[in-house]
């Protein structure tokens, strides 16, 4: 599996220049490529373009390919590209377990099997027994781990990380960082990390691109 | 020989009656199952209850339901029929029957908005005095010609609180002195409302130099002369009216509320029994009484008319007929029900019907027929229209 970008760039409608220079890169299996840049340069917009979440006022040129399959024209829900944000963005009306179950791939059938898969993921995240908890009662670190497990349960073919560690204090940060990268490498998913913190880039260990 | 002549003769004489009863049977049959939308002023709860009772009776006897459409002003129904005519809806109209008289009737009859003539075809019309010039055949000097059927009698009376007022004014002219002695305690509804206009009319009849002029249409020539004393009287009255004559209650019900609250001492009504009814309902103090000016007061009949495009006109005719039934009229005149005076000709009632009327209960605030005084004839409708316009021109600035 690999995530390839071919001359991808985004232009704001009505503006002559694109937000950033056309980007061509390839993210191999299990690697985490980091995109660095100051605030406002368009890193989040880049992720939106890759994930298929671009707002109406932007046009995207270039191509996004997943396992040599062109997904540029597909809507976001069909691309199988997961995303993690700075805020964990748990669905506030669902319990922790139901949050995880929301994205659980349909390949897992039957209530028992699905429940088991969710419980297993919770165990892995150190949140065993948290199935029926209100996500608002979780700590920042717990939420970040739950968000990752939720994204992974959907069995994505690639993962986008939009500054997912910025809201955490430094000690928690390295802990969560390790947790996330370990899981990504273990499952062999190509990941693209956007951040302004160099330490994240070093921990990711992959190529570093500056926007 | 005689017998053989008698039979065809009887049949020939009876033919019109038979034909009429056959027509009526057709109407009854067509009316069964209909719901008559009776557009009637809804400001009086007891009238509304009476209309509900009528609906229950007609449903039980003839299978005709009645649904009251409560109006704030009769003209709303007229406007509705006009709107339907404007849209080309010449059948299946939403208004089946209207409680109507006076200027509204004149307007509808003149513009061909009424169904009829139908009154002669009603069996119970036999109890009415429909001779030319009688109260039931002339509506504010406009000939009815069978286009509306009577149902209740109206007589203009005043109400006062005997606990606060020793001696109400004896004549219309006397109102000026009374108001000067009790400033701010007298008012009348806005003349754009029927009751307010009637107050002015009542004064006009008493104060006009030659009352017979009022029976003919008003014209530019005779209007000024006939109304000069009226305006002089009103100009003397106005400063002593409630709120200095700058604002007036919308209608007589609001004025009755003012009487009840103690803001004014005199109210007016077209229903002589309404005071007793109001006391019974707790809407006026026990000490309220009715008085009529010495020379008499205006009286007229309330009718029901059927628009030309009414969807359920057969049912409406059945209801109109039921209203003229002596038992219905007696029930209506019962003070505990509605207390409206009957429109039937006492001379045409048979013994049982007459007895029903005699057995009706009485009350202290309920005037006897003699107490109502002489009935003054309504002037031509154009006088009321002009009075209202002239009053507005003078005092609505």
């Amino acid at each position, binding site marked *: 599996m690999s995530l390839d970008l071919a001359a991808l760039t985004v232009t704001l409608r009505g503006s002559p220049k694109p937000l950033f220079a056309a980007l061509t890169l390839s993210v191999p299996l299990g690697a985490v490529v980091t995109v660095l840049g100051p605030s406002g340069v368009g890193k989040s917009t880049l992720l939106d373009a890759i994930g298929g979440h671009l*707002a109406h006022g932007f046009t995207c040129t270039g191509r996004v390919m997943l396992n040599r399959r062109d997904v540029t024209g597909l809507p976001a829900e069909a691309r199988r590209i997961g995303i993690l944000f700075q805020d964990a963005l748990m669905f506030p009306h669902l319990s922790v377990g139901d949050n995880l179950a*929301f*994205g659980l791939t349909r390949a897992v059938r039957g209530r028992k099997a699905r429940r088991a898969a969710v419980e297993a993921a919770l165990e892995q995240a150190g949140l065993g027994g948290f199935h029926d908890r209100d996500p608002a009662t979780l700590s920042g670190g717990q939420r970040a781990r739950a968000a990752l497990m939720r994204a992974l349960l959907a069995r994505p073919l690639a993962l986008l990380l939009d500054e997912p560690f910025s809201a955490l204090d430094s000690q928690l940060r390295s802990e969560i960082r390790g947790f996330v990268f370990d899981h990504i490498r273990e499952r062999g998913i190509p990941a693209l990390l956007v951040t302004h913190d160099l330490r994240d880039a070093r921990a990711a260990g992959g190529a570093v691109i500056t926007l | 020989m005689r017998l053989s002549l008698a039979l065809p003769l009887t049949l020939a004489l009876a033919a019109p009656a038979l034909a009429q009863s056959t027509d009526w049977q057709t109407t009854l049959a067509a009316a069964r199952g209909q719901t008559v939308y009776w557009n009637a002023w*809804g*400001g009086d709860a007891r009238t509304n209850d009476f209309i509900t009772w009528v609906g229950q009776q007609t449903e039980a006897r003839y299978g005709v339901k009645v649904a009251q459409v409560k109006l704030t002003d009769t003209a709303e129904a007229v406007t509705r029929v006009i*709107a339907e005519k404007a849209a080309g809806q010449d059948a299946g109209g939403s208004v089946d029957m209207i409680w109507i008289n006076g200027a509204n009737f004149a307007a509808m009859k003149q513009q061909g908005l009424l169904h009829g003539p139908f009154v002669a075809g009603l069996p119970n019309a036999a109890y009415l005095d429909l001779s030319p010039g009688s109260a039931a055949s002339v509506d504010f000097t406009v000939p009815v010609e069978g286009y509306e059927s009577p149902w209740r009698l109206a007589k203009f009376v005043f109400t006062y609180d005997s606990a606060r007022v020793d001696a109400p004014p004896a004549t219309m002219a006397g109102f000026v002195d009374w108001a000067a002695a009790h400033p701010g305690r007298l008012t009348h509804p806005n003349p*754009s409302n029927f009751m307010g206009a009637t107050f002015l009319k009542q004064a006009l009849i008493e104060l006009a130099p030659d009352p017979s002029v009022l029976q003919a249409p008003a014209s530019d020539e005779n209007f000024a002369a006939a109304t000069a004393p009226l305006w002089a009287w009103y100009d003397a009255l106005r400063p002593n009216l409630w709120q200095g004559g700058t*604002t007036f209650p919308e209608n007589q019900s609001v004025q009755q509320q003012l009487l009840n609250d103690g803001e004014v001492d005199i109210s007016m009504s077209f229903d002589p029994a309404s005071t007793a009814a109001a006391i019974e309902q707790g809407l006026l103090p026990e000490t309220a009484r009715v008085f009529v000016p010495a020379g008499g007061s205006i009286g007229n009949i309330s009718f029901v008319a059927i628009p030309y495009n009414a969807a359920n006109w057969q049912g409406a005719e059945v209801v109109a007929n039921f209203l003229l039934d002596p038992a219905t009229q007696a029930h209506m005149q019962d003070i505990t029900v509605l207390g409206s005076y009957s429109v039937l000709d006492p001379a045409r009632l048979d013994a049982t019907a007459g007895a029903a009327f005699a057995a009706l209960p009485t009350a202290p605030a309920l005037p006897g027929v003699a107490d109502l005084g002489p009935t003054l004839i309504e002037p031509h409708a154009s006088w009321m229209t002009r009075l209202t316009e002239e009053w*507005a021109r003078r005092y609505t600035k």
Partner: protein
Amino acid sequence: MTEPGRALRATVLVLVLGGIILPITLGLWETLRAAFGILPAIGARELSLEPWRALVALPGFATSLRLTLITGFGATLLALVLATGFCAAVHGRIGASAGGRLLAPYLAAPHAALAIGVAFLIAPSGWIARLISPWLTGWTLPPQIASVHDGWGLALMLGLLVKEVPFLLLVILSALGQVPVRQHLAAGRALGYGRGMVWLKLIMPQVYPLIRLPVFIVLAFALSVVDVAIILGPSNPPTLAVAITRWYASADTRLILPASAAALVQGAVVIGAIALWVGGERLVAALGLRWLRAGGRGRSAEPGLMAASALVAGLMGLGVLALAGLAVWSLAWRWPWPLALPASWSLAGWLNPGSGWGGALALTLGLGLATTALALGLAIAWLEGEDRARRGRAGWAAALIYLPLLVPQIGFLYGLNVAALRIGLGGGIPAVIWAQELFVFPYVMIALSEPWRALDARLLHTAAALGASPLRRLLAVKLPVLLRPILTAAAIGFGVSVAQYLPTLFLGAGRVATLTTEAVTLSSGSDRRVVGIYAVLQAALPLAAYLAAIALPAMVHRNRRALSGEFGA
């Protein structure tokens, strides 16, 4: 990129245009024709200017116009000033959610019911006079003060204020959520400006653009209201809208033509007033900039703020007393002057639903549910369509939504009735639902738009990244999370439906008897006890809807802290 949401947006647009804009246009067209002399039903078939000449000659026309302008502008300006002052004094002590909950009852009570209650309160023989007589004032008979139906329209303005001030308060409070008030206050006071000055110079200029449209709605309403003006306003002559209603209902059918001309004048008055207001805004902005640049710290505005707070508190107390007075009347038998409470009590009216209020209650409830459900469905479809196309709101689309609220009802309802009859949609429930929908839908849209847009888009991106289709995102994420705003918008729409008077009257051929039509009709009768019952019910229904809008989400989301907190998340 595919065209997601295009079909949805097109459908919604067609429904809105056909269902809302078209009727108004048709109605205005019929009114226009009548204003220039064409109404075949009464025999007028020639184009002419006669109706206009007749209109100018009608007694009191100029005074009616003057009264309308004075009461309309006066009430709106006062409401704005009072609401602003109150917010300045109170902000920071009451959170938006608590404030919303406090104001909900005032928004729920229909203006006709409140007006009837206020009329009873301030009348010379009213409750306030009864409470203080004769021990304080020595009055044995009601005084000769023109407190209701006064010639200046002050009572009318009071009745309008009782409703408009809470409305503007709510609008300002929600707008303040988008302005960093505390930071501005801190910065301004550090620079030496008093609290009131900071509000005037820093905060209100930022808040005002956000509340402009609601202010226009208040202005349009104050200029063209009919039922409140009938109950409280001057009567000889009345304001223009009431005069028009009277002319339409007159026995002299020829008056329909000048009445239609006057209805056009009413529309022009609203347009002109808004234009004048906008001009006033520019003037105030220019003068204000100069004032700002001068840098004066100004005298303390504290007395002004205290006065505003006191007046607003007084208004809200008046509103409560008004409804309480009606509730007491509904239980009274005889209540002569000057007793402070009824002399004899009775439950007779309440125990007799068959006498009318039962049917009216059921009908009002049914109509409210139907119109609210339709409006909610249409609003959600519209907003979802916008989301799917990832567009914002087009300016012209916003104008479409506000149009029914700015055009005076009396201007097009008669014409709309004629048009409806022509297409066979005669007097009846469907026509009334349609007519009410014209006004319910805009309010539901206004109430739902902000919270809908404020929903964090990334939540939906996350759901999409997890494989949820647009429909699943709507049903499984958006609607549950927005439950409280949706129910609040529904409660508002329900309240608007309950309060409708003219649309129900005109389009229902008088047969559709709702609580409001009955209450206004009966207020022309002399039995305040019956009016009290109808008014209490009229106020209770929307209040129940508001309470449901608060209680239901709290129940459904009782284990979800994030959703059971804020009012209007």
